[in-house]
């Protein structure tokens, strides 16, 4: 389903791709902001979409749209086919053992909440422990806090080093007989650190705890193989994967999903309903109440096809090259400090400037057409740990290039002149 252009680009799998050519796949990248070319460095918040994704959704609405699963007519069968094909694409992308281990959600946040509200509510009791880390996104903190309020579970927080790495010794020391779940980011949205997830899983499984990985960032920068990692749940979000807004997915091990009660009630997720008793549909429908995000699931699948067309390894190599360049170029700006320097990191440069407030930086560089994120990045506890209020974060997507970093650096120099 990926464009012909991108297929032809994959002839030599090891050669880097032509980023200028790739950029033409993304309509928004030729926008002008205040008359200046857009320099988009906020893909970690949400990525831009290639034309094939936008067109695929348009086509579905224009030629094959209907509600899914319940219609016996051609359009409904087409739409159902697209939707279930999307599930297969996501399953293959994560190397899930079964297609029905993929549950479509609105976003990554809902994927994690689903686990907290069904698995957590059913299998955890007062005193049971969940281990998270200091650098979690709010999406992987708040659902567990809500469960804590309800059930009296205990949340233990594994510390990170100043560089942004998980302190594995301290992490292991938190694991104990009452640990039921380790819920941890595969990659940090603030520091870019990639956690050693296989080691984490091995330690957690050794004491019988399950592992949920928040893969909302990681899945956009590397190949994810849930069977190889060995985790139990994996959450992704479509809009960061060059797919549309309004779609995410939870992967869960079949036997765990089977044992979990449904999350929401309604159409699609039932087998038989009477006022007295209702029985649930088999996986994955048990967890997909109501009309799903049909077109968005298809859009996500096309986005994954697009990424695979470029090659996940090539994307990673390209992004890493830009990241290295960014570290050099931005690291050379006086008064600017890069935080998050773990050896294993991807795509993200978080910065603190001594010459201006992050808010002022964002405002000034916006006027140069440069889009970065400032603030706490939905990770207030991490900010507290780092002793800062806000950082300026530039994040690199598959379409960014060294010039984007140059534009950011020049804009930051301008900030220094205005405020310094």
């Amino acid at each position: 389903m990926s464009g012909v252009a991108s297929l032809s680009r994959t002839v030599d799998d090891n050669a880097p791709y032509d980023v200028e050519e790739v950029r033409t796949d993304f309509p928004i990248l030729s926008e002008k902001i205040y008359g200046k070319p857009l320099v988009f460095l906020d893909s970690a918040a949400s990525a831009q979409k290639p034309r094939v994704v936008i067109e695929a959704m348009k086509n579905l609405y224009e030629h094959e749209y209907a509600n899914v699963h319940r219609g016996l007519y051609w359009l409904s069968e087409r739409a159902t086919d697209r939707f279930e094909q999307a599930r297969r694409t996501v399953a293959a992308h994560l190397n899930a053992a079964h297609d029905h281990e993929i549950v479509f959600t609105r976003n990554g946040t809902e994927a994690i909440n689903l686990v907290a509200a069904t698995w957590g509510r059913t299998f955890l009791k007062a005193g049971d422990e969940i281990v998270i880390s200091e650098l979690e996104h709010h999406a992987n903190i708040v659902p567990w806090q809500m469960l804590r309020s309800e059930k009296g579970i205990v949340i233990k927080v594994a510390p990170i080093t100043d560089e942004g790495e998980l302190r594995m010794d301290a992490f292991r020391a938190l694991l104990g007989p009452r640990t039921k779940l380790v819920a941890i980011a595969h990659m940090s949205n603030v520091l870019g650190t990639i956690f050693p997830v296989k080691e984490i899983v091995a330690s957690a499984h050794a004491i019988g705890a399950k592992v949920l990985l928040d893969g909302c960032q990681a899945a956009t920068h590397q190949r994810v193989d849930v069977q190889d990692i060995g985790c139990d749940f994996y959450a992704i979000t479509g809009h960061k994967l060059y797919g549309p807004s309004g779609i995410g997915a939870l992967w869960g091990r079949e036997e765990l999903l089977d044992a979990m009660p449904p999350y929401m009630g309604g159409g699609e997720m039932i087998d038989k309903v009477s006022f007295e008793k209702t029985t649930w549909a088999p996986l994955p429908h048990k967890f997909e109440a109501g009309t799903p995000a049909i077109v968005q699931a298809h859009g996500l699948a096309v986005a994954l096809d697009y990424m695979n067309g470029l090659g996940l390894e090539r994307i990673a190599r390209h992004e890493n090259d830009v990241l290295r360049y960014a570290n050099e170029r931005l690291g050379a700006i006086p008064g600017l400090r890069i935080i998050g320097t773990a050896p294993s990191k991807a795509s993200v440069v978080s910065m603190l400037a001594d010459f201006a407030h992050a808010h002022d930086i964002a405002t000034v560089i916006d006027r140069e057409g440069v889009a970065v994120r400032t603030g706490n990045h939905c990770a207030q506890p991490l900010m507290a740990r780092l002793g800062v209020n806000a950082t300026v974060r530039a994040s690199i997507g598959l379409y960014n290039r060294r010039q984007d970093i140059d534009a950011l650096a020049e804009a930051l120099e301008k900030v220094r002149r205005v405020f310094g």
Partner: protein
Amino acid sequence: MANLEKFEEFVDNLSQLDDETRFEYILDLARKHRHDPFPASDMTPEHEMHGCQAKVWIVHEQRGDMHYFRGHSDAAIVNGLVTMMTDSFSGLTSREIAELSIDHVRKLNLGSLTMQRQVGMMAMLKYIKKLGLAQAA
């Protein structure tokens, strides 16, 4: 794999038909089925296969090492499809049943009657395998 003669016959026949006649063919199967009616006494919840819009019952019997299936649906087209499935896969051994896969369903070219019905056929195959293999275990 032996004993798939009946199945191969269906595959052959369907492949030679166009959409319109394929449809007639399946309805014919359902009509033939009228002469060998499925007894009302077998239309019980324990024989009912869930998950279809139409009701589907399938009865399984083992004779020696061989498995036999009879089925019915209250909807005519589904009835034709059920007949196709039960006739195709009756007379197989447990081992042979274990080897059936969705490729068998795919080979039955249903033309424009695909998709939802193909899903239904897959479900029937699964159910047939479950019945056959439960017995074998």
